[in-house]
């Protein structure tokens, strides 16, 4: 058995690319993405699991990157908001959010977008009720949520999953 580590090399796939950097084992995945890899699209609000701003996909499942250590993601496939668009072409969920004015300041948006991508991958045609339930783990200070629910529904109607 390897003995306990305090700092280590962390290699993982992020948005389809092999990435690696050295980090202290107490670094969260969110801090590792932002500070270690320079991917600042993943936002940090509460840093204890409540606001959803830091949501990323870990092997396809939506998770809080503030509640995961980077060292726990070794060997995993992580998708962040930076991994969605293809060049200048927004991902269908991003485009639907844009078309529905599903954000104001945009701070919460990466988390909502990643949560929506995970939802539509599993359930391409969720009801409005189901959309609301699924988004309940993400907090927005600006929009009042209606336009975000509209954005998800629009994405679903365009077969964006």
């Amino acid at each position, binding site marked *: *058995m390897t003995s306990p580590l305090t700092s280590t090399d962390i290699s993982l796939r992020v948005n389809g690319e092999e990435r690696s950097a050295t980090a202290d084992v107490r670094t969260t995945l969110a801090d590792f993405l932002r500070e270690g890899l320079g991917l600042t699209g993943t936002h940090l609000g509460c840093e204890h699991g409540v606001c959803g701003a830091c949501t990323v996909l870990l092997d396809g499942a939506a998770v809080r990157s503030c509640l*995961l*250590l980077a060292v726990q993601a070794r060997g995993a496939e992580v998708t962040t908001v930076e991994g969605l668009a293809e060049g200048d072409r927004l991902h269908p969920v991003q485009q639907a959010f844009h078309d529905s004015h599903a954000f104001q300041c945009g701070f919460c948006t990466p988390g909502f977008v990643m949560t929506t991508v995970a939802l539509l991958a599993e359930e391409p045609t969720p009801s409005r009720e189901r959309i*609301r339930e699924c988004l309940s783990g993400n907090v927005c200070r600006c929009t009042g949520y209606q336009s975000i629910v509209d954005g998800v529904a629009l994405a679903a109607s365009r077969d964006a999953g």
Partner: protein
Amino acid sequence: MKPAPFAYAAPTTEDEVLDLLAEHGDEGKVIAGGQSLLPMLSMRLARPSVLIDLNGVAGLAGITEFDGGVAFGATTRERAAERSALVGDRLPVLAEALPLIGHEAIRNRGTIGGSIAHADASAELPAVAAVTDAQLVLRSRAGGERVLSAAEFFQGHYTTALADDELLTEVRIPGSPPGAGWAFTEVARRHGDFALVGVAAMVVLDDAGSVEAARLCLMGVADVPLRLPAVEASLAGQPVSADTVAAAATDAVAGLELASDVHGSGDFRRHLAEVTVRRALTTAADRAGAPA
């Protein structure tokens, strides 16, 4: 970096975990889903010197048949249990409780064993364990294996019978009595919040449509999941009626000592608990086949 420094171990077998726990004692802490522990580390409410990650341990997660019910390896994700057809079939009360835990992104990581070991007095799974007469399997180098009931395991808010060097390895939930109707009902301020109160109930009816057996467990009103054997016994033999249910609900909340906080006064909680017991018993009786 918000957590205080620690060393990180990623064992791959249960034996290695038990060795690490034996070596580090109260300085070591296992991490399962991390959905409760990571916030505690970040707020420095927990400062272990060694963090022992269970996520790479082979064979510690899994859903298998057990005594007409289901056994869960400790690191089975809440979301995996929620999606399991076996759980839907055999443990309707667990299937109803799981979606009430936080949000999907939380349940994608959070584990059955983690929630039970964490023993938050407002958590759903400890109440499910108590109402289903679950068996909790604990192992350590020094003590070998012991199997505890929920009543033996839960000792207070965040406090359990787990010794510092002990690992919860399995949660075994036996099958339901034939014909049982189950319900899990709670009141939370918003979807996904920890509930103010919750109630798990079971009702079995006899041929005449009276209550043959009942179980009742309240959550969020005491520092442990609260089974109410006296109320359960008093329901036996009673016809299912609004009066029977109302009387049981009144008895159920009679002895509660409820504190006030920002989320609600003690009186408000008592009122919620009484209404929730009524709803849970009514739903369980309906599902057991009581005429509406």
